[in-house]
């Protein structure tokens, strides 16, 4: 995913239709959220981006690369998931986790349900690491309410 522009505001990482990230089955519990574009800031070390939903423009998901934050967070795909995303062994996905803010002002990351994206086709799926013990609201940092 590339970054463009040099303004402080969010801009589309790429405007072309082939940069749309497609979730064929939507997100868990949110089946209609299928097409997204990544909005990022022009920063070299991307800490956070926004996935804007084209099916529902009010829906904008804050996301981060969890490996920037958590040294031992790992997501491995089973064969079925690799086939669904058309990613053979050796091709590594782009992984994002959504971010939320609690009412107490904590930024939290959804480590239980990462977004897994095929970097070549931009087909994606939210997978659920059901037996991992990870939380949907893993605390990251205080940001204020």
């Amino acid at each position: 995913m590339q970054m463009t522009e040099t303004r402080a505001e969010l801009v589309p990482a790429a405007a072309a239709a082939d940069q749309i990230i497609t979730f064929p089955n939507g997100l868990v519990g949110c089946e209609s959220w299928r097409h997204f574009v990544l909005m990022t800031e022009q920063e070299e070390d991307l800490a956070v981006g926004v996935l804007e939903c084209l099916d529902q423009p009010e829906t904008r998901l804050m996301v981060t690369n969890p490996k920037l934050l958590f040294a031992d967070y790992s997501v491995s795909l089973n064969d079925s998931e690799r086939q669904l995303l058309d990613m053979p062994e050796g091709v590594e996905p782009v992984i994002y986790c959504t971010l939320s803010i609690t009412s107490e002002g904590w930024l939290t990351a959804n480590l239980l349900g990462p977004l897994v994206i095929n970097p070549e086709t931009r087909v994606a799926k939210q997978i659920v690491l059901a037996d991992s013990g990870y939380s949907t609201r893993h605390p990251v940092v205080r940001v204020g309410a």
Partner: protein
Amino acid sequence: MLVLSRKCEQSVMLGDDIVVTVLGVEGDRVKLGIHAPRGVNILRHEIYRQLQDANAGAANHSRPSVQSIADALRGRSGQKAQVSPA
């Protein structure tokens, strides 16, 4: 809600592509086997709800600017945490 009773080894079809089979009953636990097409998430209901709530929460919060979140993350990113659950 449609209510059916099944004995061990009996199944239920959901549409043409999903089969739920009762594999066993032990006390108050029922073991279910499920065949579904690739791409259909099979989740314990409470996990499904947890994910659904988290997705909705990630899309629908009054938030400070992304820049300030990025700053907060950058301030913290020197200390990568261990995240493996206990």
